[in-house]
């Protein structure tokens, strides 16, 4: 079964993104597949590669990255949400004449169409909200 996971929560401030990560790992370990993880609202802050947590806290940005690389999972950041929150890749940083992007690969910026596509093509959509 294919799961789409929708993340609304920023790192650390709320538990939602951390729960979504637990859920995503459980999906990959259960024999199911992750169709896509879509970051919306403040969820886009998870893509911020500049996150530098204290050593006794988990690095959630790094954990998303590891999950994506080990299981070939798409991490899609909504462009409308991310621009107004200052989460940019190099292309958008150039377009808006900002000094540099801050999105870490394999997070990718894309449009809301990716949320709708995931809703259509995944068997289940599970939202982690705040």
């Amino acid at each position, binding site marked *: 079964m294919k799961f789409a996971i*929708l993340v609304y929560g920023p790192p650390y401030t709320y538990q939602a993104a951390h729960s979504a990560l637990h859920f995503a790992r459980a999906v990959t370990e259960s024999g199911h597949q992750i169709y896509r993880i879509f970051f*919306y*609202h403040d969820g886009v802050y998870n893509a911020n590669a500049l996150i530098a947590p204290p050593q006794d806290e988990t690095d959630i940005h790094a954990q998303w990255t590891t999950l994506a690389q080990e299981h070939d999972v798409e991490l899609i950041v909504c462009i*409308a*949400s991310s621009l107004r929150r200052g989460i940019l890749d190099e292309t958008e940083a150039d377009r808006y004449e900002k000094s540099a992007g801050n999105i870490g690969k394999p997070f990718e910026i894309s*449009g*809301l*169409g990716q*949320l*709708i*596509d995931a*809703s*259509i093509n995944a068997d289940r*959509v599970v*939202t982690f*909200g705040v």
Partner: protein
Amino acid sequence: MKRILFVQSRAPYGTLSGQEGLDALLMGSAFVECALLFLGDGIYQLLSNQDAAALGLKDYSVSFGALKDYGVQNLYCSESDLQHRVLETDDLVIPVTALDDAAIRELMASHDVILSF
């Protein structure tokens, strides 16, 4: 084809939830059949006479008028949530159908995906 139910549960302006939910609905309606349900404080998004100019925030209540053009015809709210807020459907910027709790449960169960905002 799948059908998506969008659920809006928050008041406008205090959070961006309503506007980002509406953006998602407009995108969704381009591809599949979508319905929109207002629960709890969500119905405040439709209250008439909103004017957010002085806030410096986007007054998106006018955007709900565009839903018809996007083919979104199934607009619902909770009868009891409306009454609890001493509102009537005439107070709202667009017509919505007020449902009782059992009908709302059925509405949810008759859709393939529920996206909540």
